[in-house]
């Protein structure tokens, strides 16, 4: 969009002329994107920049914010990789094996996308609490799951579950079995076949899924806010911190931490695009 502004003047004027004569089918989506996406993003970034670099830095790196980033990113990263491993396994099982209820299980993998996040948080808080079906199994061991960082992790596992499965599944389906058989005929062990033959072509898709899951987990609010105790320095995540700052009418605090989160989300979006481009080159 801004590429034209660096061009020479007549082209710029020409571009303006073209814009005025554009049909409505161009103007409608452009205007909508401008008002719905561009303007809000710019509003946040400009508002954050009015704080000045020194104040921005001191708010963005206040101890409570730093600890919220630590909880958010460490939990999101670990859960993204756990879902990477299990997502790969689920995709493999769904593509290669036949077993009862396979169709239903395949469809149910998308449930976290369709289930409202507050419902997910509510049911996790019940199931994983001390008296819950699963939480009561851990309570005698002295492990509290709900309302701790474990609860945050479980919520993130649930909401980012479908990503790796859905990115890897089509790649696995397209993969020819002959390649594995060839590797096997040439004397490769099962493990070598998996590591050297199967994994490389799946890798871009799996990493894309992991990055998508990580990005989603970092921004997650609804399920985590219910299943965590939202205590600072313990299980408070950054999006909840933004919300709390807003509730206290601390607009600078909310804006600065929100801008940090926005910057990280946009960086992740670029990374995901690069991973997808890598995947296409592979295919």
């Amino acid at each position: 969009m801004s590429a034209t502004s660096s061009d020479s003047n007549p082209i710029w004027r020409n571009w303006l002329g073209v814009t005025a004569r554009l049909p409505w089918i161009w103007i409608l989506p452009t205007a909508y994107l401008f008002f719905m996406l561009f303007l809000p993003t710019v509003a946040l970034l400009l508002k954050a920049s009015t704080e000045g670099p020194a104040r921005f830095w001191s708010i963005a790196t206040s101890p409570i914010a730093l600890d919220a980033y630590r909880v958010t990113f460490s939990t999101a990263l670990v859960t993204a990789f756990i879902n990477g491993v299990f997502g790969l396994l689920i995709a493999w099982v769904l593509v290669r094996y036949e077993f009862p209820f396979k169709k239903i299980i395949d469809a149910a993998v998308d449930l976290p996308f369709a289930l409202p996040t507050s419902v997910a948080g509510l049911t996790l808080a019940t199931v994983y609490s001390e008296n819950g079906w699963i939480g009561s199994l851990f309570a005698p061991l002295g492990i509290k799951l709900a309302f701790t960082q474990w609860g945050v992790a479980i919520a993130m596992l649930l909401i980012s579950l479908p990503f790796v499965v859905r990115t890897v599944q089509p790649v696995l389906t397209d993969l020819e079995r002959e390649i594995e058989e060839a590797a096997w005929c040439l004397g490769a062990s099962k493990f070598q076949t998996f590591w050297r033959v199967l994994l490389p072509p799946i890798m871009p898709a799996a990493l894309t899924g992991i990055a998508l899951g990580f990005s989603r987990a970092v921004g997650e609010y609804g399920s985590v806010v219910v299943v965590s105790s939202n205590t600072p320095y313990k299980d408070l995540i950054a999006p909840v911190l933004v919300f709390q700052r807003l509730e206290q009418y601390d607009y600078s605090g909310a804006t600065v931490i929100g801008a940090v989160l926005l910057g990280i989300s946009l960086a992740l979006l670029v990374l995901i695009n690069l991973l997808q481009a890598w995947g296409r080159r592979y295919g």
Partner: protein
Amino acid sequence: MASLDPSLKASEAASTAKEVKPRDWAKIGLITTAVLYLTLILFIPALNVFVQAFSKGIGPFLANLTEPAFQNAVKLTFIIAAIAVPVNTIFGLCAAWVIARKRFRGRALVISILDVPFSVSPVVAGLMIVLLYGRNGWFGPFLEAHDIKIIFALPGMVLATAFVTLPFVAREVIPVLEELGTDQEEAAQTLGANNWQIFWRVTLPSIRWGLLYGVLLTNARAMGEFGAISVVSGNIASKTQTLPLFVEESYKQYETESAYSAAVLLALLAVVTLVLKEILERKTRIKEVKEDT
């Protein structure tokens, strides 16, 4: 991967022993692990929603459904979806058409920008809308002067919902349009059809399943959105409370039963969405097979 190793080694030993059975053990082990993980993370929590909602029988459940706060939440959820979904459908169709049919500078960038609402945290999305339309926001003084309330009112909630559901339709329709190509549209044009006729008679029938798929996902997210709406609504009971907000608020007030009564409705919506999604996927698959033969 640690859990995979033993089973893989077992099958390795089996292949040298020329037996079929241990290979099955690897398969059974992998399937069991996958299903066990899904059970812990997904199936048990999902089942729990239904068990809790009807734990005291159908009577208390139905009684909870007649509460005024609950009924207002249902009404508001439907109103917001009824505005946000059509608006984003029209935008999505136009955007998809432009992106799929035209080659312009920055096209790849626009496709990436479309994904921004998916990667931004819902709370940050809500914050952006507050910073634009809130009291101290850019448009705040103007809105106040004209006595228009957006934040803590319906318009803000619609804006927040429209923001988080913006990409769905465009993302589903773009690949369908690209695959469709322009041959039929050009043929219609040569035969004298005008743009509207081409759209209604040629393009729309071909993209209808992809479009419905996008609308379905938009609606599911619109009715289930929590974070962004939570920021802009102020969560005022009976006034700016949607069903997902009602669930959280009831839970916080220790009214677990009403929380689950609302939650089960939202869970049913999710299940219906998945069933319709499966049907639509099958429809498009059948069409592909037909075209192949």
